[in-house]
């Protein structure tokens, strides 16, 4: 069996088909045998009648040849008589002399003995005829003729009797035959169904590894290489294909693995390069930072302020002091959040410095709720906003520019508004600023370095809302209001 299973698919399928056909053949053979024996039976049904007819014929021949001999005494007829008498006695000898319940058996017996009797009578007739004993052979002749008639009557009756019983047998046989036909059809049908089942099952089993293979191939096609590799059980075509497939899957997997490794190496190299660059930048920054020593700057400015005080130039002293404070804030404030007061102070200082620089043409007003000054807000916010208002709003207008700083409470929000009466903005610009798409002019010399987009994004991060900053402008030359509404954290 294992040998068969190891053989090629073709052989397997052919074997199964041959097996199924063999079963059908054997069953058919049996059915045919059955039909054959039944038809033989049917043939034999009227056998008795045929035998009787033969007997009748032989009897007639004996009688005829005897009569002919008696009337013509030819040697032909005598010969005929001997032949037919022998035949008749043989045929009669074949008859059964059993006595049974069945009338035709008894009739057969009677016919047998009567025929024997008849034959001896006929013989005597012939003998006396040859002896030319006229008186006697006449008497014998009459006697044998009577017997002949009686036997014939018996034969006719027996024939009839047999015919009746044989007809019954025949109809029984016919019924049996019909029955057999039905059974044969049923058996053939069953065998056919059985064969279909067997073939289906075998083919299924043969195809099963192939199905598994196709499932696996499907999965591999979808990119999943982590599959259970189908096993080849037998060395047929399917087994070979499965083996090849398994090898292929494994080598593809290996190849992918190698590819990934080389990619990873490349990525690592790129990362190294980037870090190197960052380090370089960092070093450069540190170098620059080291150059601007805040202490040196403050000491220098303080020295300037003292000199101005000694020379009695009060205004110069104040100015230098303010500048020093302004820069100190910048240097000092490395923390994220500061108090509102500090931011407001920074704005004060900034305006003062500007007024000195531009000979005091900026009007600066404050409306500040002192209670709110102790709250916290992100550092370096207000000064860039004010700087923006000055640079873009006021500097480019004619006439005296004014800036109003408002700190107030609105519901549970801390609101800070910077209002200028400068050039204003159109809604497109506002949109651009709020969405951070406006590119500020980086090369402006008096830029503090912190752009509006930086401010906005830090505010949004701090408040966690987008509407933390709002810009309002009525249009060209109508000023602008930048309003911050910060969450008012409870102390």
């Amino acid at each position, binding site marked *: 069996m294992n040998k068969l*299973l190891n053989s090629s698919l073709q052989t397997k399928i052919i074997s199964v088909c041959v097996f199924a056909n063999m*079963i059908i053949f054997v069953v058919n053979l049996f059915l045919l045998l*059955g039909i054959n024996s039944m038809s033989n039976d049917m043939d034999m049904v009227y056998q008795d009648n045929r035998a009787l007819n033969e007997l009748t014929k032989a009897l007639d021949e004996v009688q005829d040849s005897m009569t002919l001999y008696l009337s013509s005494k030819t040697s032909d007829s005598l010969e005929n008589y001997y032949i037919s008498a022998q035949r008749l006695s043989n045929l009669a000898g074949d008859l059964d002399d059993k006595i*049974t*319940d069945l*009338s035709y058996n008894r009739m057969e017996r009677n016919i047998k003995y009567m025929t024997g*009797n008849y034959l001896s009578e006929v013989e005597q007739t012939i003998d006396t005829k040859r002896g030319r004993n006229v008186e006697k052979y006449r008497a014998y002749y009459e006697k044998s003729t009577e017997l002949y008639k009686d036997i014939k009557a018996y034969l006719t009756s027996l024939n009839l009797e047999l015919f009746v019983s044989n007809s019954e047998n025949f109809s029984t046989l016919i019924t049996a035959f019909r029955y057999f036909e039905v059974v044969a059809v049923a058996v053939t049908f069953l065998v056919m169904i059985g064969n279909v089942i067997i073939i289906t099952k075998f083919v299924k089993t043969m195809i099963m590894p192939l199905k598994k293979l196709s499932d696996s191939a499907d999965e591999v096609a979808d990119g999943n290489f982590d599959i259970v590799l189908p096993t080849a059980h037998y060395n047929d075509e399917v087994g070979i294909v499965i083996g090849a497939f398994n090898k292929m899957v494994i080598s593809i997997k290996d190849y992918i693995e190698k590819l990934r490794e080389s990619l990873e190496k490349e990525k690592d190299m790129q990362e190294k390069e980037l870090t190197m660059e960052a380090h370089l930048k960092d070093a450069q920054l540190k170098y620059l930072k080291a150059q601007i020593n805040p202490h040196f700057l403050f000491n220098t400015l303080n020295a300037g302020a003292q000199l101005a005080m000694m020379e009695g130039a009060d205004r110069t002293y104040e100015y230098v002091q303010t500048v020093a404070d302004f820069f100190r804030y910048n240097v000092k404030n490395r923390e994220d959040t500061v108090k509102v007061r500090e931011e407001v102070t920074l704005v004060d200082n900034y305006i003062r410095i500007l007024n000195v620089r531009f000979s005091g043409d900026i009007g600066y007003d404050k409306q500040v709720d002192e209670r709110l000054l102790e709250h916290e807000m992100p550092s370096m916010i207000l000064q860039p906003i004010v700087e923006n208002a000055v640079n873009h709003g006021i500097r480019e207008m004619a006439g005296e520019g004014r800036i109003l700083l408002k700190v107030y409470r609105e519901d549970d929000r801390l609101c800070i508004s910077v209002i200028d009466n400068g050039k204003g903005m159109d809604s497109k610009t506002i949109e651009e600023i709020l969405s951070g798409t406006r590119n500020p002019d980086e090369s402006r010399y008096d830029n503090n370095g912190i752009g509006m987009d930086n401010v906005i994004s830090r505010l949004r991060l701090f408040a966690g809302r987008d509407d933390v900053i709002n810009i309002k402008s009525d249009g060209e030359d109508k000023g602008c209001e930048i309003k911050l509404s910060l969450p008012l954290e409870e102390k």
Partner: protein
Amino acid sequence: MKKSNVDIYQKRINRQYLTLLFTLFFVVITLIAGSFYFRFYRAGITRRAEGNEYDQYYVMITDNYKSDFWQSVYRSALETAKEHGIYVDLLGENLSGDYSCEELMRMAIASKVDGIIVYASEAVSMTNLIDEAVKNGIPVVTLYGDSTHSDRLSFVGVGGYSVGKLYGKQIVNIIKDNRRQELLESETIGDRTQIQIAVLANADTLDAGQNIIISSMQDTIRQENATDSEFEVSIVTVDNTNAFAVEESIRDIFMQEEVPDVIVALNELNTVCAYQAVVDYNMVGDVNVLGYYDSEEIIKAIDRGVIYATVAIDTDQLGTYSVQALMDYYEFGNTSEYYTADITLINKENVGDFKKKEEQDE
């Protein structure tokens, strides 16, 4: 995971083997069982043609195998014979033509049967045939009708004398009835009528039994003090040589001017014919029929009063005795020469009892 996969496959393969084996097994079993069944089935069909086998073969030869009387005798004979491994054939029953007793005798002798039971007559041809049979080693028992001059083994029949006596008594009763009636009706003795008694005798049989019956009947009447003037017995020969002749002969009696007052029938057919004729000629009450045998028809007729009385013969005894005689011959070499079966008279008075008994027997 992989292992279980392999297992599943292996399991399937194994199941496949099982299916295959099972199928083969099933097919083989079915085929074997089918052929066995088929063989038995066939054997059943062919075996039906076999019956019990018997050691000896007797034949019974009668003049009319179809009559109730003979059928009844034959049944009991067959029953008795079968118990002893013998089969009795009612010869002629299976043959298509009609055969006389003589012809059947000839056939039986030619057939070399083991024993012949024959309704014989005193005819010479019959005697010769019986002698021929005995010469051929076949014992012959005469039944109901005897052939006294032959070499027959024994005779089984009814006592003709007692039958005659029974008839005689019935006739006396009829005569007495008549006397009583005439005493009431007529004034002078001269007016008294003579009772005409017609005995239906078969023409072809020179039957001694028949004569015995008649003479015994006459004796009985005389013993009962009836004078010759009161009755007259005439023997009407009924031609039974060919079919239907009996019926015609009996009808002839009724066509005559003087119809007998009493008709005595000595066999079943005559009884039935006489009874039918009486009914047809509207002579119920005028003609008294004394019948023979107790077939259903006759019993019915007695019940209705058409037949005055009938003699019932114990047919069982007839059949049994005849077989018994042949068996005795084979066992002991000889047997009693006469067997007599019982007879009973059935008339209007006891017909009810008889009918009841019949029903019980059935």
